């Protein structure tokens, strides 16, 4: 046997043993592909999930599917961009403030990122639609680079801004292995029922209704609960309320975030969009620092940026939890923003 043959034999042995060591990983990958918990490989109809009256954990995808399913028959031109907080902005209420030609659509996502918002604007442009009217609702934490540190398995459905396809699937794969996610997802997989516990951050809470054309979720069941027995509601979600005596100012946003905001402005200006930028309140008082607020005003224009970060923060009755303010707060914000 020559030296080269000997070396080749060793090489083959090494490759075989490495593959053997990787078998457990392979088994996990195969299981993930077969189950596809985030529905990013095999596809699914999100409306099936909605029929169960429980929002799927991939609300961003739900929004995208709803938009794609209806845009041929509905000429959307008014879009609400933002996180789950925009759910409480009633489209009908918004329409009162807009000209008659406005056709509104909720284009939000749970834990929406700036990249996710830009992705959605990209999609609208790609489909040849115009953003004539828009609301951009921001939460202070959205400007932090660590925005998703709390719930790492919350994922954007669409490819993130400038993310390649491998990274996209790798991100979902790693999220599916998150033990907090598995704790909730595995029981769901076997029972088909979601657990609406305080610890559950996989599924959204049960909703009262869903309008697929506007992509509007109706959570007024929370209002009903609070109206009926507010103490019971606040006790049930007590861990979701962190009373803060003073503001928690989030650090200055990075250049990367600023570039994304500038890109948003460019897109909206290209469409001559009539838009408003809203900085909404949060009960736990996470607020932007004044430099960033000034920067936002410089980017989007003083007349377009509305700072409501301190609106109603003194009372938990204005909030469903730490960050979601109630329908009536959203209504009053829209009234103030549009000056009617």
């Amino acid at each position, binding site marked *: 046997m020559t030296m080269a043959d000997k070396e080749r034999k060793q090489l083959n042995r090494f490759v075989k043993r490495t593959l053997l*060591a990787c078998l*457990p990983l392979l088994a996990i990958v195969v299981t993930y592909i077969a189950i596809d918990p985030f529905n990013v490989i095999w596809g699914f109809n999100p409306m099936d999930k909605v029929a169960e009256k429980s929002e799927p954990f991939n609300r961003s995808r739900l929004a995208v599917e709803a938009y794609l399913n209806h845009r041929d028959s509905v000429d959307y031109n008014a879009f609400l961009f933002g996180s789950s907080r925009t759910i409480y902005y009633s489209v009908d209420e918004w329409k009162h403030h807009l000209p008659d030609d406005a056709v509104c659509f909720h284009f939000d996502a749970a834990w929406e990122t700036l990249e996710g918002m830009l992705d959605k604007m990209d999609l609208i442009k790609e489909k040849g639609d115009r953003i004539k009217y828009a609301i951009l609702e921001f939460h202070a934490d959205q400007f932090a680079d660590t925005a998703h540190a709390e719930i790492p398995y919350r994922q954007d459905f669409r490819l993130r801004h400038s993310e390649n396809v491998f*990274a996209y699937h790798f991100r979902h794969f790693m999220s599916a*292995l998150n033990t907090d996610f598995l704790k909730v997802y595995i029981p769901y997989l076997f029972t088909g029922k979601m657990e609406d516990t305080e610890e559950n951050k996989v599924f959204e809470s049960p909703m009262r209704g869903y309008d697929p054309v506007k992509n509007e979720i109706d959570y007024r069941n929370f209002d009903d609960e609070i109206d009926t027995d507010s103490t019971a509601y606040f006790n049930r979600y007590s861990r979701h309320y962190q009373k*803060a005596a003073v503001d928690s100012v*989030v650090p200055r946003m990075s250049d990367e975030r600023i570039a994304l905001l500038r890109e948003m402005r460019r897109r909206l200006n290209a469409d001559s969009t009539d838009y408003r930028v809203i900085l909404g309140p949060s009960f736990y008082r996470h607020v932007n620092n004044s430099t960033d607020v000034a920067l936002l005003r410089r980017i989007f224009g003083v007349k377009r940026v509305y700072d409501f970060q301190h609106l109603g923060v003194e009372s938990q009755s204005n909030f469903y939890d730490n960050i979601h303010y109630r329908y009536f707060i959203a209504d009053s914000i829209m009234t103030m923003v549009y000056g009617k």
Partner: protein
Amino acid sequence: MAFNSIIYALFLPVVFLLYWYVFARRLRIQNVFLLIASYVFYACWDWRFLALIIFTTLSTFFTAKLAARGQLRLWTGINIVVNLAILFVFKYFNFFAESFAQMMSAVGWEVDAVTLNVVLPVGISFYTFQALGYSIDVARRQIKPSSDIVSFATFIAFFPQLVAGPIERASSLLPQIEHERRFDYTEAVLGMRQILWGVVKKVAVADVCAVYVDRIFSQPDMYAAEFGASTLVLGAVLFAFQIYGDFSGYSDIAIGSARLLGIRLRQNFRYPYFSRSVTDFWGRWHISLTSWFRDYVYIPLGGNRRGVGRTYFNIFVVFLLSGLWHGANFTFIAWGAMWGVAYVVERMIFGKVTYTDEPRLRNIMSMIGIFIVAVIGFAIFRSPSISFFGHYASLCASSSLCAIPSGLTAMAYVVPFLVVEWLGRRNSFSIERLPMPAWVRYLFYTFLLMVVLFANSKPETFIYFQF
């Protein structure tokens, strides 16, 4: 392309298979392939900055050749000035321009700072220092200038250590590239094992700690008010483990990847948190940078040959420069200065405290002492500004240290990691030797793999990429 990305998980096996199955025993072609792979690796960040690497490569290669023919100091000097100028423009210009404007403003002169809208090229400090080391070694006639541009370009751009070290010496890496490599089964197995351990450090230690560190450092007031100073202290401790897991994990992956290709890189970390003195710490932390500064700055400054006072001054200057090397921020300079003072004070009191043996449990008090100094240093390092650190430190002093801190969960990863590090401290990396039956070893690999997969961490960029 980051080591903790899926792209690298695909890239490395492809390079490995082509390297050994297709190009083995054809040195020239194998080196060309390695160079292309390295450039592809770097281009995945920003292909435009490849021009900088190529420029550094060509200027260093040709000035070294010219220097060897005569006018040694002139050509070496030109290359050093040119490369440092590039580094300065990309890394420090804005910092110095803004600092100058602020300084002028403080004395009543309003100056508009001219700043450049440039992005910092990944790894520029690492490959620039490697190239400068080569130039100086040639000038000192410690090595002969390379005559093969492909080998030399591969030496500068060798992908496992291109963006975050270890900073290699030409005398060690270049001959390995210039000579035919043979596949060595044992080396390859150790390489894989070191990669696995590096990934564990990065994903299950650094990234797990990062989740808590980011939260605590972003809202220290809130954490101090709600959980007490103990959480802030824990935040600083966790950052010490984050940066160690992050950087030494990167180094392990780099060394392991190179081993797979039949190339040995130098050890960059040697269990620094088991150090028993400041001197000992700096012999264990970022070894390749420390020794670079020793050989190319400290010794040319006179080292310890010009009296005690000058020795202390030289030590302090080296630490200050080492801090500045990390980036254009006063916190890095303060970090370097802090270590400089600690090093000098230790030397003044105890003389040069070095050890030839490995640490033992009876050294626990000195290890804890040095660890505390390291934690304070890294808290400065992690702070966005000096004033932030001052505020953070005052919060630590003003609220309760006895409360149960938030973020203790991370210790579930840190403590077992420390135990493994302690048990393996006689090896070049903790799990280098696994004297156990093959099936137990495979089970152990599977366990580590599961730890990585289920660590619940959020993939973070390697900290040292920014340097």
